[in-house]
């Protein structure tokens, strides 16, 4: 069984591995209490995504919209729940970020996943987030 990634080793591998195509993707390791990788997707309108590894899990999250940007929360929540099963590879969620509710699109994968799978997840999540934002345009103020 291969060794699980850590946030640092994953960041290092994404930068140094020649097989990884990072065209239009900017990666920055951000330290602090918990280290994360901040990802900026230049070909997806500079969409910022955050990735962190903890134990057996890699978590990648992308901010969809703030709750304050939604017209009707109740209707939007229902629309999210309905879209979720048909949204391949990614999930929709709600989180409290700095005292504000933020809808996120996120993906989880094993910290023992091959690098190619991690890169695929990054691309898929960016695609899905933009598509979700487009699909939910009518719900936004």
């Amino acid at each position, binding site marked *: 069984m291969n060794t699980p990634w850590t946030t640092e080793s994953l960041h290092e591998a994404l930068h140094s591995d020649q097989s990884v195509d990072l065209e239009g993707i900017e990666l920055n390791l951000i330290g602090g209490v918990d280290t994360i990788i901040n990802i900026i997707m230049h070909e997806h*309108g500079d969409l910022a995504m955050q990735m*962190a590894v903890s134990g057996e899990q890699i978590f990648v999250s992308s901010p969809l919209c*703030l709750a304050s940007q939604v017209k009707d929360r109740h209707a939007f929540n229902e629309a999210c729940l309905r879209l979720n099963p048909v949204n391949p590879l990614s999930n929709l969620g709600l*989180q409290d970020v700095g005292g504000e509710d933020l809808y996120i699109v996120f993906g*989880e994968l094993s910290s023992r996943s091959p690098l190619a799978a991690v890169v695929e997840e990054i691309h898929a999540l960016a695609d899905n987030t933009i598509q979700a934002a487009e699909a939910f*345009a009518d719900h936004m103020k």
Partner: protein
Amino acid sequence: MAIWTKIITLFRGAAHEAGTAVVDANAMRILDQEVRDAQNALLRSRDDLAKIMAQRKIANDKLNDKKAKQIEYSNYIREALARENRGLAQEVAVKLAQIEADIATEGKIIGEFDNSISKLQASSRQAETVITRLKQQIDTVKATESVQRAQAALAAQHAGTGAKLGTALDSLERIKQRQVERAAQLEVAEEMAKTTGEDTDLQRRLAQAGIVPGESSADSILARFETPAPKALGHDGVPQLGQANVTSQSS
């Protein structure tokens, strides 16, 4: 152990308080402790299992001894009866009765051991699954929390500038903006190509009509020679080469 209930309690209380950790740190510590306790309990139950299996083995060995004795004593009784020594047979029979009672008891004890063993095995398998899942959930919560904290920090960076946390809506807006820009660029390029095209067409038609000099063709060259030299140039009487005359005319 209901895992989801435990995870949900992690989010109680602390949420909706700006600036505080999203996951209740205290609840997380409790959950971590519970996992450790569960792991210890699992280790203890494995020890218990090993002890019970050892006891079962001892009991089984005893049972086998008794069964061997049972056969041995049965043979004695048969032998004694064959030799018509009823008294001796009676004596051995008393002993055999005791052995058979012991066999029954031992058998029951072993049955109970077997029961306990299968129950312990099942419960430690279950405990193992629960612990693995709970650890996975804790990993997920921790990873989520790292990302959330980072997102909050990023949002705080924007707070001073009055800008909101950048979301997919902003990115979508940028994508649309870029598409509009690209479309506009494309339109300009097309327009320019078209204008150039129109100019070329006009030039061609003007040349065809002989209004502007076009490309030399055999006809136009011949026409130059056939056209009589104009008389109004003022150099009358001076004989000139027709060709030179035409050249000055056309330049």
